[in-house]
């Protein structure tokens, strides 16, 4: 009797090891890799550290963290399933983003549109590879290069893809400085890359800056009501910032709220990366398609930049087209750095920031339009 009891007690201590599958180990290594990228390589550490840790946690068998009542399940159900976390993050992003550069030159909204082409091409590729329509849309959205948008769409329409698409989106966003320069070099001539763009004069009034979020919300909401939560939250954050009368709320949105939600969002996304679910050929395909989406966005942005170069008689440097992909503000910095590499007198940052802010609005609008088209077709 005592021996049986002893053995059962001992089994309790070894059950974790006994239930460990090879896929759990693979995912622990991937979790470790995400931690390494975040901590040592400074790649999106705010997200990759909690995601990596959550990924390791969820692959420890029998802990039941994602079972009913498990602490990760509670966080996941409260913020991801309800879509609240990405929306709170958007309020913070809106409060942190200065749309001034895109308002200085409203034509840069068009670069933001061109930077979304990859989403739609990738959607077609995903369909060709046999993914069902809603999954294909979710995979295409990786090309929005905008984490909260990806999470919002996946949590609504393809929860089983939440882990891979989120990891793909944030990882590739962090890799923008590595992915974009070769494409920029391949698609532009030295003469184009050396183009100097006219320095900005400050021409946007405070009234225009305050009306921007209100007008965009109303017009965008009327065109694509299904994406209004995304658009409204980012614009609310921006209105708070530009109005200047709710400093406490603005600070809370860009600091405390954004920080707390980022932590909870990261760890609950990591919790979706359970070995038996994640280690599949499909995940690899999603990662490849996501990479392709962001590269195609860059290609289309630069090609549109080249069109503007031709139309304006060489006044627009096509490199700023690469910043139309969102990934704010990293893509703008890459355009500035690459421009300076070929012409020390070239200062593209403010122009690229315009395209980048246009891309931020463009990615949200692309998702909003897609959701509304899906609704119109009766798919959702």
């Amino acid at each position, binding site marked *: 009797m005592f021996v049986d009891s002893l053995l059962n007690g001992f089994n309790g201590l070894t059950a974790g090891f006994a239930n460990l599958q090879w896929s759990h180990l693979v995912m622990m290594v991937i979790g470790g890799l995400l931690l390494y990228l975040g901590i040592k390589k400074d790649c999106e550490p705010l997200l990759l550290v909690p995601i990596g840790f959550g990924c390791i946690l969820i692959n420890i068998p029998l802990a039941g963290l994602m079972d009913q009542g498990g602490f990760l399940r509670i966080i996941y159900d409260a913020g991801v399933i309800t879509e609240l976390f990405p929306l709170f993050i958007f309020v913070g992003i809106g409060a942190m983003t200065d749309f001034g550069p*895109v*308002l200085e030159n*409203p*034509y840069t*909204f*068009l670069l*933001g*549109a061109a930077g*979304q*082409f990859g*989403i*739609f*091409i990738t*959607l*077609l590729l995903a*369909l060709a590879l046999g993914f069902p*329509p809603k999954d*294909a*849309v979710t995979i295409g959205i990786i090309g929005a290069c905008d984490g909260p948008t990806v999470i919002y769409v996946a949590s609504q329409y393809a929860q089983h893809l939440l882990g891979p698409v989120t990891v793909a989106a944030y990882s590739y966003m962090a890799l923008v400085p590595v992915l974009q320069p070769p494409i920029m070099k391949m698609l532009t001539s030295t003469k184009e890359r050396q183009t100097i763009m006219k320095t900005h004069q*400050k*021409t*946007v*009034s*405070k*009234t*225009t800056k305050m*009306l*921007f979020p209100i*007008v*965009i919300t109303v*017009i*965008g909401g009327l*065109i*694509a009501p299904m994406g209004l939560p995304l658009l409204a939250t980012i614009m609310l954050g921006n209105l708070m910032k530009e109005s200047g009368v709710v400093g406490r709320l603005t600070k809370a949105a860009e600091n405390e709220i954004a920080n707390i939600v980022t932590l909870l969002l990261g760890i609950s996304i990591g919790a979706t990366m359970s070995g038996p679910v994640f280690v599949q050929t499909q995940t690899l395909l999603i990662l490849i398609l996501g990479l392709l989406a962001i590269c195609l966005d860059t290609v289309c942005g630069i090609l549109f930049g080249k069109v503007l170069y031709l139309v304006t008689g060489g006044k627009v440097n096509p490199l700023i087209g690469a910043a139309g992909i969102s990934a704010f503000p990293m893509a703008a910095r890459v355009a500035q750095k690459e421009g300076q590499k070929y012409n020390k007198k070239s200062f593209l940052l403010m122009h690229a920031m315009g395209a980048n802010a*246009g891309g931020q*609005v*463009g990615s949200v*609008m*692309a998702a909003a*339009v*897609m959701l*509304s*088209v*899906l609704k*119109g*077709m009766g*798919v959702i």
Partner: protein
Amino acid sequence: MDKWSFGMTMVVVGMGGTICTLVIFSLIMSALKKVFPYKKEEDQ
């Protein structure tokens, strides 16, 4: 609906809708800049 009709609808209406929306945004913001021009006093 077959998947190619779905895909092409998404590309044409989705991408077209996104471009049109951003063109509209661009025009509206240009108009707003004209209606509410920047004045130097705003810096003070």
